[in-house]
């Protein structure tokens, strides 16, 4: 890591040497990175579990309509806020990628330790949704355009559109057909049926419920466009939420 003192750093005044000053900056950078990552992991995880919840917990909730609609929209909140923080304060094009990585790390710890380790649900029932390529998309659109408006419009739409194709490489294998006692099921349905969840009855699932049938079997594109559209609006709002919270004014006291 290179650190410049050209912008008027206090090296030579408080520190004994330039090396000591740079070492302090580097150490503080690492501490900041780890702390930020942990804070984003915890807060985004709670937010996402409360709003996406069962859609993300269980494979038999990952349908073609509700899951690709709800999940990107609720994930956009923290992605936009983190971009606002990392971009406006540091010009770092990593906000969205960092929060989705933090979320995924938290989710995998949760799914492996709690869902598998404590209650023995197989991982193929409880793996989380993949989001990382969406984070890349949002960050790089912001970096190239340099505009949060363009990112909201183009990035938000792509955020919604990319979600299902990103997850399909894992999901496809569980949408193969089987039958049990003469009833047609996908493997995803069957995993949910086989591995008993006492508190999660089948009727809780919202599998393609709704009245929109105009587009026949092409449910995903409609859901994805809708999700992308709402993600744009969510981006506008949460960019500003991130901006409001990206301040140190509450800490600016004489002692500090």
């Amino acid at each position, binding site marked *: 890591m290179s650190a410049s003192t050209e912008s008027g750093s*206090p090296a030579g005044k*408080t520190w004994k040497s330039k090396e000591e000053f740079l070492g302090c900056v580097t150490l503080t950078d690492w501490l900041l990175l780890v702390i930020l990552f942990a804070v984003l992991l915890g807060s985004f995880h709670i937010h996402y579990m409360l709003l996406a919840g069962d859609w993300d917990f269980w494979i038999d909730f990952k349908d073609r309509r509700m899951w690709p609609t709800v999940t990107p929209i609720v994930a956009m909140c923290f992605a936009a806020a983190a971009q606002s923080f990392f971009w406006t304060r540091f010009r770092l094009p*990593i906000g969205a990628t960092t929060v989705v990585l933090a979320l995924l790390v938290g989710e995998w710890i949760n799914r492996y330790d709690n869902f598998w380790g404590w209650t023995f649900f197989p991982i193929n029932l409880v793996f989380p949704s993949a989001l990382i390529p969406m984070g890349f998309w949002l960050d790089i*659109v912001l970096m190239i355009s340099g505009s949060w408006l363009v990112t909201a419009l183009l990035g938000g739409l792509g955020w919604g559109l990319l979600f299902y194709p990103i997850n399909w490489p894992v999901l496809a*294998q569980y949408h193969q057909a*089987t039958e049990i006692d003469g009833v047609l099921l996908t493997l995803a349905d069957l995993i949910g049926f086989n591995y008993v969840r006492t508190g999660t009855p*089948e009727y809780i699932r919202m599998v*393609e419920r709704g009245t929109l049938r105009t587009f026949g079997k092409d449910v995903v594109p409609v859901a994805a466009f809708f999700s992308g559209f709402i993600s744009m609006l969510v981006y506008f709002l949460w960019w500003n939420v991130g901006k409001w919270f990206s301040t140190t004014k509450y800490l600016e006291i004489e002692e500090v």
Partner: protein
Amino acid sequence: MKSLNLQSMAKCATARVVRLWILGVVVAGALTTLPATPASAHGERSQQAFLRMRTLNWYDVKWSKTELNVNDEMELTGKVHVFSGWPQAVARPGESFLNVGEPGPVLIRKSAFVGEVPVPRTFSMDVGKDYEYKIVLKARRQGRYHVHVQINVKDGGPIVGPGQWITIKGDMKDFTNPVTLLEGSTIDLETYGITWTYIYHFFWMAAATAWILYWFMTKGIIVRYWQVKAGKGRELIGQDEKRIGAITLAAVLLAVLVFYAAANREFPRTLPMQAGLLTGISPIDEPRSTVAVQFKGGSYTVPGRELRIRAKVTNNGREPIRLGEFTSAGLRFLNPEVFTTRPDFPDYLLADRGLSVSDHNPIAPGETRDLEVIVQDARFDIERLSDLAYDTDSQFGGLLLFFSPSGERQRAEIGGPVIPKFQAGATL
């Protein structure tokens, strides 16, 4: 100000703080990874008495085995009466799901039937009817577990039936769950697709980590902050950086396309998930009961744990009958005058001397008689049915089972309001 901030941050980054921080991470890690003791009960006693007594009345519940090896199968069978006086406070069972109360999937559910109909999905039940069910379970994890039948009712919650201790021997690592796909191949659903799921997710997580570290390692956080603060933010993202971003984005989108196409090539025939309400399931097809019971009043003596029911019983059958059992909320109260041998049923739910009647003589065919039925046993209190006295709707419910000399059984539903008696020795 800048200098002050950096000094204070440097002061914070002392060895002591770093040690404390590492300790915090270790404690957090330990808290999330330490093994937990499996739950042994499912809160059935915590459900309100009226809910358990006046919704679903379970009877003839049987567990085909109580000891299994991993991969062995057992059947959980029985019948359930949907109580006519279904409480207003609970949604009706128009959308219900046949479930199992157990601590995680220690046994997996291979199939489930209501009547002759397979019910991997939600189904509809009618109030006042009786249904027969069968659940085929396969032992998965070693241990001793309390296994209940359970029906979840939409907007009503789980209604837990009787439970039995099941012992599973062996080792979960030997468990398999073979499933045959429609295209003919057989897979082990226990592990199917998990390795690929890990690879795919951790590939993207590694890519994201590399992206974050690349930007972090170039100029860190604090230096970037100073430069942005100094109005030099534009210098941080120049043409070179944008070129790197564009190449990365192109690579990411290409990878998404390749993975997507590969999935479609490998799995050309996929279906959307299957869902929907199963309706028209037939209740148990058996002759109408020949016993008519009319509730005439009742009381519950709180200190004595005694439920007294006054009922007018009419025998419309061809044989004399005697009251042998009252069942409610999964508990069975037996009349020892009728049950001379103890049936095989979990002890904590079986009061084999818990029922008596004011008149032990059989009720002759065509006869109508007023009976006082006394249900008394500590289990009434242990299973928290005594809380009936504190419900907002203090009504009980259950099934009376009458027996003829030839062994024929007649069911009759009974229920209604009871008056609590808070002093021992009080009478109706």
